[in-house]
């Protein structure tokens, strides 16, 4: 019983982190209709930025998150303005392909620049645990989960209740109407993609505190982000919390009852099932 509870807690902690891992992908997908296949690679990049600020300047990984997010925002704004805006009206497959290309470029650049070594961001408190009712809770994981959920809620509030957030949602619903009301799409698209990457960067920083990082973590993270975005649906940022928690729980339960090699099989199997049975997501509206 204790073991089951422990596994459930682990799954929830992992699931909270997964929420922010997928949030940037879901935002860019929902607003720009671009499925960013490089999303995981940008998370990887964010993790390395976090690693360098921690190891060079001794900046605490949690305090360093805003810096990582700002750097990634600027990068995202530039990529959308200079590259992706050139093809947003092309067929869907072209946007898939170009972000696929970006993923390949980022992975190999990371391999050249950062080398293929495994790295971890381990502040002094990284080994600390707290025990509640016999269940061990690693502090860093708890903090990463809480920060991830908080950031998701902030994003949700931002999209619903701020002027810029409304402009972004209006663009997602109807580009020409939004244009008539004075929204400048080139700039707004770039801001949205920048926000997507800022979230990816923050996710990378958090990910680095709980897992090892290397140049190849991107592809799996992209695939998991899809699974989360699809399970939760794209209509509301809160969907990724539901999707993230479901994925986290599926993975930890499969690891316990079936075996660790089947964790990915289970999560992607659920992804395929959800795609086939209910492509709008569990929370999504039916078409």
């Amino acid at each position, binding site marked *: 019983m204790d073991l089951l509870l422990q596994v459930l807690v682990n799954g929830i902690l992992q699931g909270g982190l997964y929420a922010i891992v997928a949030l940037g992908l879901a935002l860019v*997908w929902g607003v720009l209709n671009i*499925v960013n296949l490089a999303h995981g690679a940008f998370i990887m990049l964010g993790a390395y930025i976090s690693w360098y600020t921690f190891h060079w300047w001794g900046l605490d990984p949690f305090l360093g998150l805003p810096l990582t997010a700002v750097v990634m925002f600027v990068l995202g704004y530039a990529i959308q303005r200079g*590259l992706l*805006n*050139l*093809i*947003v*009206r*092309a*067929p*869907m*497959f*072209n946007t*898939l*392909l*170009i972000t*696929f*290309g*970006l*993923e*390949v*470029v*980022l*992975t*190999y*650049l990371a*391999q*050249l620049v950062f080398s293929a070594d495994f790295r971890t961001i381990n502040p002094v408190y990284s080994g600390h645990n707290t025990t509640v009712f016999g269940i061990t809770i690693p502090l860093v994981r708890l903090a990463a989960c809480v920060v991830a959920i908080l950031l998701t809620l902030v994003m949700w509030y931002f999209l619903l209740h701020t002027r810029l957030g409304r402009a972004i949602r209006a663009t997602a619903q109807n580009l020409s109407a939004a244009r008539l009301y004075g929204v400048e*799409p*080139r700039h707004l*698209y770039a801001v949205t993609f920048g926000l997507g990457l800022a979230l990816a960067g923050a996710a990378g920083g958090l990910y680095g505190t709980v897992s090892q990082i290397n140049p190849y973590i991107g*592809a*799996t993270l992209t*695939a998991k982000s*899809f*699974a989360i975005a*699809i399970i939760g649906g794209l209509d509301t940022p809160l969907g990724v919390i539901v999707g993230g928690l479901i994925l986290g729980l599926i993975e930890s339960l499969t690891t316990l009852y079936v*075996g660790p*090699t*089947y964790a*990915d*099989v289970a999560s*992607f*199997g659920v*992804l*395929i099932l959800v*795609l*086939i049975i209910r*492509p709008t997501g569990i929370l999504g509206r039916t078409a």
Partner: protein
Amino acid sequence: MKHLRLPLILVVLVALALLPLYGTDTMVQFGISTLLLAVLAQGWNIIGGYTGYPSFGNSVFYGLGAYGVGIAMVQWQLPFAVGMAFGVVLAVAFALLLGIPVLRLKGHYFAIATLALAQIMAAIVSNVPLAGENIGLVLPPLNNDPFFYEMSLVLLVLATLTIWWLTRSRFGFGLIAIRENEEGAVVMGVDTTRYKVLAFALAGIFSALAGGIHAYWITFLDPESAFDITLNVKMIIMAVFGGPGTILGPIVGSFILSAISELLSSEVTSIAGLFFGIVIVVAVVLMPRGLADVMRRFRRTGWHYFIENIRMHRI
């Protein structure tokens, strides 16, 4: 120009077929891997180029073909040809079982579902005792590179002839109708589900045969290398660079890109990977319909061709 095309193709084909006589061992080996990649690109061309369903999971067929040969030859001591047939059976079964639900999905959703399938195959196979779990299988060696070379060439010719047949058959026109407008195709009486599944299976057959040849040639296979996801990157970019939905485009694309990547990887391995990524990004922006379209239109429009492509798709 048009009447010269067929003789030119035949001359190139004869020159390719005779390569083992005048080429070095390295050239033959490079030839085998290039021809197999070209077969994969042609397989992708059927489902992605002609039917308009961008599969990111054709590497699964390749892996199934490789394991078909591996299991038949190592576990059951059967001849290579039986192994190839077994690989084809596995690929067709996969295409039918998973193709029917997955091909109902459109656009992003189809791409993602196939990508997810590609990601889990290695994990599944590494738990199957018959497939040697994650240790893999060691096949009986056959040191006969010219044999593998000619077999790959024949397979590429077969795949290309199939695509040529597609461009002039009722089935092929049905696929193109699905790509251009699926609802319209249904209205015109195309049984879209059957057509899409058949196209997926056809792509799967050629990819599986390529995987089978590769497995016997390399004489070793394990889950990670047989179900290598980066293979999807290669086959898609080769088909798209050359010209998706054309008969010869994917072959030209694979030959050019394989040659460049071979030259680059003789310097630094990771540079070749970087090169593929950059080619994808640049090609999507400047020539999204591939080399075939550049050849058709460049003479008339000149350098404006590339600017026009950007102008059409930007905001």
